[in-house]
């Protein structure tokens, strides 16, 4: 079962890389014109294209790239730096931001979800539901600007610029990450919280919960001891989805706060038609989704004795 899952994952990767390659090839303009600007004469562009191997047909370029990628070599970016050098530090930055956000958002979301389920249809639940609905409806860039306006411009608590650089010391870096972390937390919190609440409430109507109530256990104990273990699977999958978003969907927040992560790298590469970098980014994003979903599935299987020991 697991092997099948992993094989499927690889197949999806292959298809994704092919689609991306095709899409980029279809974009008007190419790297040579993007880099040389409009000041380039046609023969300059032609010379540059030849140097990059852009004059070969696209399927030939794709197969060459695939061959190298399988050996772990993502080749040279069109700006002649190794793709690994371009993406490596940026990916680390994004993971760093995602980890910090997840550390805050995941426990908070599950905790609030449980509280909402406990007090369902009472004032506290209504408040949490209303605010989470509002949070889901507001576009993230708007959130980011509001945060910037309140905390950076009006209160001067945190810098508005999260452009962290290796030369900064850790305290300064963390200080600059507060606003993006806060914004991302707000963006993913609501979704995870609502799913947690819904999953728990759906379990609450089951007979074994009624049994627990009849035994005279307290409401909190019923939720934590009897309901929660049975909803680990659904919660894990929604958490996985949001963590994947933190790595692959964080572009807007990165652009607004000028955070040097992989999302910005991808945007920059698309703007410049830098195909090797786009490919590598797309692969990383796909791997993120596939891997996290795999982990979520494994957690579901492990947390459910009936799936763990199939008869």
């Amino acid at each position, binding site marked *: 079962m697991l092997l099948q899952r992993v094989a499927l994952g690889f197949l999806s990767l292959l298809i994704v890389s092919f689609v991306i390659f095709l899409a980029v090839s279809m974009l*008007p303009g190419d790297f040579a014109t993007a880099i040389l600007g409009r000041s380039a004469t046609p023969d*300059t562009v032609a*010379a540059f294209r030849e140097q990059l191997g852009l004059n070969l047909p696209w399927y030939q370029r794709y197969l060459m790239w695939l061959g190298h990628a399988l050996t772990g070599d993502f080749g040279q970016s069109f*700006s002649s730096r190794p793709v690994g050098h371009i993406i490596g530090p940026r990916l680390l930055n994004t993971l760093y931001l995602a980890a910090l956000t997840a550390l805050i958002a995941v426990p908070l979301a599950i905790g609030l979800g449980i509280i909402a389920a406990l007090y369902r249809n009472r004032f506290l639940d209504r408040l949490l539901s209303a605010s989470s609905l509002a949070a889901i409806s507001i576009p993230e860039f708007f959130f980011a*600007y509001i945060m910037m306006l309140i905390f950076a411009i009006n209160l*001067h608590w945190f810098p508005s*610029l999260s*452009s962290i650089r290796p030369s900064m010391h850790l305290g300064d870096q963390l200080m600059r990450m507060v606003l993006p972390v806060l914004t991302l937390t707000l963006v993913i919190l609501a979704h995870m919280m609502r799913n947690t609440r819904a999953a728990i409430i759906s379990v609450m109507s089951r007979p074994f919960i009624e049994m627990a109530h009849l035994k005279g256990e307290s409401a909190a104990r019923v939720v934590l001891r009897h309901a929660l273990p049975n909803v680990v699977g659904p919660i894990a999958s929604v958490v996985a989805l949001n963590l994947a978003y933190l790595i692959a969907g964080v572009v807007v927040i990165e652009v607004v706060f000028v955070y040097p992560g992989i999302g910005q790298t991808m945007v920059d590469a698309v703007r410049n038609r830098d195909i090797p970098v786009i490919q590598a980014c797309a692969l990383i994003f796909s791997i993120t989704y596939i891997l996290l979903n795999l982990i979520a599935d494994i957690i579901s299987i492990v947390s459910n004795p009936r799936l763990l020991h199939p008869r």
Partner: protein
Amino acid sequence: MSEFSYWAERFKKGQISRREFLGRSAALVATAGLGATSFPNFATAEEPKKGGSARFGMSDASQNDTLDPGTWPASFAQAAFNGSLCNNLTEIAADGSIVGDLAESFEPSDGAKKWVFKLRNGVTFHDGKSLTVEDVQESFRHHMGEKSTSGAKSILSQVASIDKDGDSNVVFTLNSGSADFPYLVADYHLSIMQAKAGGGIDWQKGIGTGSFKLENFDPGVSIKMTRNPNYHKDNKPYLDEFEFICITDPTARTNAFVTGEVDFMNDLEVKNMPPIQRNADLEIQRVPSLRHFTFDMDTSVAPFDNVDVRLAMKYALDRDDILRKVFLGEGKKGNDTPVASAMPFYKDPTPQHDYNIEKAKEHLKKAGLTSVDVNLSVSEAAFPGCIDAAVLYKEQAAKAGININIVREADDGYWENVWLKKPFSGVDWYGRATCDWLFSTVLAADAPWNSTHWKNPRFNELLIAARAETDQAKRAAQYGEMQQIVHDDGGMITLAFVNWNYGLSKKLGHGPIGGIFPCDNLRMTERWWMV
């Protein structure tokens, strides 16, 4: 905001003492009598001070930026690598005149076909190596030859050979005379770097002769540079160090500037100006640039092959209205010539083409038409505000019987698929520093970017004659006539010349700011100081 009210404001806030305030205002009164108004760009009347570090928020870095001088697509790379790390043989001063930089003098001979540049004595690179003629030769050859992929290749196509004459003379021999050659070698691509043994230049090292040494470069994110203590210009640079920080998003850049995260921002959007204007610690610099926006008509196809139709189109456009509504008054009204007022030999042709329905109708009639239908290709990629301008133009021209059908083209690929290909389209021109360079790239019969497909015999004859003309009065007359010809006969409808709009903290001191290239002709880091 006047300087007086600035000091008054600071006095009120208690940032300066009463004594200082009185001194300042007295000084202001004194300098006002001396015509201080002729220096509109002076932040303070102070002498440049040494020391301090400045942070510049830049909009246009890319992770593809490299140190290779054949690339450098935007002002981040240009101002850091050409303007701070390296020097050219010549430099464009803030007033647009050309002065020696690594060359202490340059002399033409043989009808401006031969140019001798004498290198300055005692110039060293950041690693201590002395500047030699070979370095200059190789730095130029880097952009030349069949295999070159450099943006400066076309500028140097007129160079036949680059020879060494003694230890300090570089001799350029051109295919034909060019009186503007010293201007061309100030192009940012033509930075001087170290020659490698066996040919080529060693650009990967990040070593130049410039005012700052490279400390840290993170492509697409930031660059940090420190003062070069052995710089060959008196006293310069003033800053101890500076950092360029890339902030692509306009809102984020403005916020970083307003909150003091950076001391400078480029590409300040017109709509973000009011709050900055109200802030006593910040100033806005509007530097007239060479950049201009046009609607280009292909003069080789009907109906634009008739000069009267072209004139009707020019009179049917209300430039004042568009400047006010689309560009919010930030810029200068165009007059159907691509020459900017900051350029040498600029002459404003007469009459100014203004909105005139009667004249437009009259010219249509001369062309034997009562009405005419045209397609105008636009996109937001053509120039900022292009679509709005086209919509206004459509309304204005309709009154003269000119029916403009607006064709929305895709933003992506606009320059590949629309520009130079569609008969009538919006274009964003960055301009060129000299008339010859500009005309040769855009208006000459065989120009690579002759977007109007305009082939005017008299214009092209004058272009060749003026190119090698070293008598300045004659040359001025020739260029004056050419600007008049373009204005009367050409296919370009020039809407407006725009400014470079920068935000500067009052902590930054500077002299008059040049507008030939962005960022004080790319030399802001060596020209500016911390107050």
